[in-house]
Structures are given as structure tokens and as C-alpha cells.
């Protein structure tokens, strides 16, 4: 394509956007709304994914609390039995004293409160490290058949819940996004249709003097893409500043520790930028194709 042709087409597109500025604003707003919602969903999904990854690393252990009456030999026997269960990687034994010390550590400067306890009521326990989180259910089933275990504590439920939430958010999000994108495409198609009507006479003449089909189509195509891109840039801005605000809020008002587990703003934008650009331009392009197919017989 020649440069002056490209100039001509860009000019036509922007003139049309300006001429139908009402509908153009509506299109941009609609792309913006769809992508902002998408941004929120991406934020949630990425964070839930991130959390569940962290959780998997921390929670791939099962803690079994032992009966108070168990003697030393019983304890080591039980340890051997547990060690032979399929899927168990290795065991750590934690005495009741160690458990108390760990608890004091965790309580930090309030640890002195534990000093008042007259007797250590914490049980002895085995901490079972699993080969992977998937075997947890089977291992627990096996543990249940063993004698001398008072309680089994494991985090599969937490993980399951988290995965469940992630999946739920993803599914609902996807459905919502599809609906929003369809609406957006329809609105863009309508905007293009207005341009088409405004330029019908011109197009008619172009056809009779032998303009190629793509020469006629390009300006509309560009118009759709420009509207989509403007919308996606605004949405990206909203998601960026919104996420930064929430991120700061969490790390300042709540806990530094918590913010470590949140996907950083920069990474989030790096991930959403390509998605937004492609989707914005894509929605715009599809919207114009929709309109051109229906209303422009070239």
C-alpha cells in the first residue's frame, strides 16, 4: 500500500470517529468497561493462582498428632509404618517441647504469655512430607488405619477450596467476558454502520470508478481498531492505577507479609498489556467486519 493511500485512510478513519463522536465515545466506553472487568478478573485469577502455588509449597505436609499414652518404641514403630506408606517422602518428628517453642516463636513478642502454662498440653507429632499434594488423600486414608494417632491435620481442604475459588472465578469471569465482548462488538458494529451510512454516496462512487474492495474497507477497519485500542489503553490505565492503589493499601494498612504473596503491579501490567492490546484491536476489527459484511456489498 502506498504511503499517501495510508494517509488517506487514516484521515478518513479519524474524520469518521469525530463525525460520529457520540457513538465513538460509546464504543470506547464499552471496550473500556469490558476490558476493565477482564482486568479485575485477571487480577483475581492471577492472585489466586499465585496464592495456591505458594500454598502448595507450604502445605504439602500432613501433621499427625500422636496419642499421649504412646511410649518411645511405639512412636518409632509408628514412624516406620508411616514412612512406608506410598507417597510419603520423609518424616520429621516434633516433640511437644519443640511444638511449644515453635509456637512461642510464632507468637513473637507475645510469646511470654505461653510461660504461664503450667503443663505443656501440646501433643507429640510427626510432620509428613509428601511427594506431591495429589497423594494427600490416599496417604490420609492409610493413616486412618493406623493405631496411636489422635488427629490428622492437613491442608488439602484449604487447597481444594482455593482451587475451587480459582476455577469459579475463572468460569464466571470467562462467561462474563464473552458476554461483554459480544456486546462491545455489537456497539462497535453499530458505530461503523453509522459511518457507512454517512459515507454511502462516497462508497457508491468509489465502486463505480473502480476502487478495490480493500481500499473501500480499510478506513472502516482502521476506525474499529482505533476505537478498540483507545478503549483498551484507558482500561489498562484503570487497572494499573486501581491495582496499584489496592496493592499499596494492602502492604501499608495490613501487613507487609501479605503483600509478598500478591502479584506485583509491574508483573501484572506486563501480563495484561498484551492481552488488552490484542483484545482491544481484535474486538474493534471484528466489530467492523461484522458491520461491513452485513452492510457493505463491495
Amino acid at each position, binding site marked *: 500500500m*502506498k504511503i*499517501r*493511500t495510508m494517509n*488517506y485512510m487514516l484521515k478518513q478513519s479519524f474524520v469518521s470517529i469525530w463525525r460520529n463522536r457520540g457513538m465513538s465515545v460509546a464504543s470506547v466506553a464499552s471496550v473500556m468497561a469490558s476490558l476493565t472487568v477482564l482486568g479485575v478478573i485477571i487480577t483475581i485469577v492471577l492472585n489466586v493462582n499465585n496464592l495456591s502455588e505458594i500454598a502448595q509449597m507450604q502445605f504439602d505436609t500432613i501433621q499427625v498428632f500422636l496419642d499421649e499414652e504412646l511410649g518411645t518404641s511405639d512412636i518409632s514403630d509408628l514412624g516406620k509404618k508411616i514412612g512406608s506408606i506410598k507417597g510419603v517422602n520423609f518424616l520429621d518428628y516434633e516433640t511437644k517441647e519443640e511444638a511449644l517453642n515453635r509456637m512461642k516463636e510464632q507468637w513473637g513478642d507475645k510469646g511470654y504469655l505461653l510461660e504461664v502454662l503450667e503443663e505443656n498440653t501440646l501433643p507429640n507429632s510427626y510432620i509428613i512430607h509428601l511427594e506431591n499434594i495429589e497423594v494427600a488423600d490416599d496417604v490420609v486414608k492409610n493413616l486412618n488405619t493406623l493405631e496411636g494417632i489422635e488427629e490428622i491435620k492437613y491442608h488439602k481442604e484449604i487447597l481444594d477450596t482455593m482451587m475451587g475459588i480459582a476455577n469459579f472465578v475463572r468460569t464466571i469471569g470467562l462467561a462474563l467476558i464473552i458476554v461483554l465482548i459480544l456486546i462491545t462488538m455489537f456497539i462497535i458494529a453499530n458505530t461503523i454502520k453509522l459511518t457507512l451510512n454517512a459515507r454511502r*454516496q*462516497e462508497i*457508491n*462512487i*468509489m*465502486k*463505480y*470508478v*473502480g*476502487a*478495490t*474492495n480493500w*481500499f473501500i474497507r480499510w478506513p472502516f477497519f482502521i476506525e474499529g481498531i482505533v476505537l478498540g485500542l483507545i478503549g483498551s489503553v484507558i482500561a489498562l490505565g484503570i487497572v494499573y492505577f486501581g491495582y496499584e492503589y489496592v496493592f499499596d493499601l494492602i502492604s501499608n494498612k495490613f501487613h507487609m507479609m501479605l503483600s509478598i504473596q500478591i502479584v506485583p503491579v509491574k508483573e501484572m501490567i506486563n501480563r495484561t498489556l498484551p492481552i488488552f492490546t490484542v483484545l482491544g484491536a481484535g474486538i474493534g476489527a471484528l466489530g467492523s467486519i461484522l458491520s461491513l459484511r452485513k452492510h457493505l456489498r463491495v
Partner: protein
Amino acid sequence: MILIQFKNVSKIYNKGIQALTNINLTIDKGEFMFLVGPSGAGKSTFIKLLLKEEETTEGVILLDNEDITRLPRRKVPHLRRNISVVFQDFRLLPSKTVYENIAFAMQVIEASPKEIRRQVPMVLGMVGLSDKAKQYPNELSGGERQRVSIARSIVNNPAILIADEPTGNLDPETAWEIMKVLRQINRRGTTVVMATHAKDIVDTMQQRVVALEKGRIVRDEHRGAYGYED
């Protein structure tokens, strides 16, 4: 030398209307041909088939020995650069000046600015509107507008100029101005096919006349007359 050839061409529209039946016709290079006949005789369909706005139902149309009925859609634009058309209603863009209206036809086929600067004043001169270049269509008379429209249709040097009732909206005197311009274009070698109801013009011009009735050619005379009482 044959430029256009219709071979057993029929056109039936989707609704079952038989618009043209078994048309056989040749048009030579440089010819001036009138297409006459009552409304609904098939003149418009004839023109639409030539412009490939409609497809033939049967038969073939050859242009320079090339079968245009089998032309893929994407090649139609290039066909239209060779077969140009002028309408009764001028079809000028009101927001563009005379010069811009004509230049537009060149811009959309991606002619260079240099070519545009050379061609536009030349065709404006041919239709006698050199002094109106900067005016807008609504500042011109009907005859002048039609001359702009003709200038636009020949600016890309088509082989054929089709005029679909070009004088239909004009008074007799102005119509003659248009005919002079068309005759001049024809003399320069462009084949002209003109569909018309203007009896006086056809009778006076003494050119080939093809008469259509109910979709069939009923008369084809060189140096013919209109042959209908309006």
C-alpha cells in the same frame, strides 16, 4: 474491431422476472451506440451486466475477447476502471469542489499526485469547465454538474463510457451541451453506450440505435432513429 460481445445472454432475476432474453450483440471499438426502449425493457439490466453489478443467468459477455462473466469478484474493480459510467443524477460529492470530485476518482485507484495534477485540468478543459474548478456542485447548473460527472468518468481513460440517461434531468438546450461533450469524447476513441428516452437527440445524432422491448433486441440500425412516439 470488436470491443464488447454479448453471446446468447439472458438474465432472470431471483424473483423470476425475465429481464433479458437471448441477447446477441457486438459493439465495436470507437462506436457510439444508443440503447432505447420503453421503461422496463431491460436497458438498466443491460448496463448492470456490463458493469458486473449483476451476473448473467445464461450466456457470456466478452470484453476485448475476455469473458467478464467468469471474472472473479476481486477483479471487478479493475474492470470498472475500463468501463466507466455516468448517471442521470450526477452523483457528485457535495462536500468536494469540482476539482476534488474529479481528483477523487483518481485517488481511489491510487494514481500519483503528479498524474492527478496533469489529468484533472485536462478533462476539465475537455468538458469546458476549467473556470469552475474551485466551485462546489451546488453552485453549478444541472448541465455543468453532469459535465463534471462526465469529466470524472473519463479521467482514468476508460475504454468504454456508459451513459445511463445522462440528459434525463436536463432541459433540451443543456442536453445538447452534454451530447456535444459525449460526441467529442467518442471522437477521441472512447466507445460510448448511451441509454436514453430522448427522441430528438437520437433522431438528430444519426448513430447506431439498439432497441430493446420486453428483454429482446427488436431493432439494431446504424444511423437509426428513436422509433417511438415518446
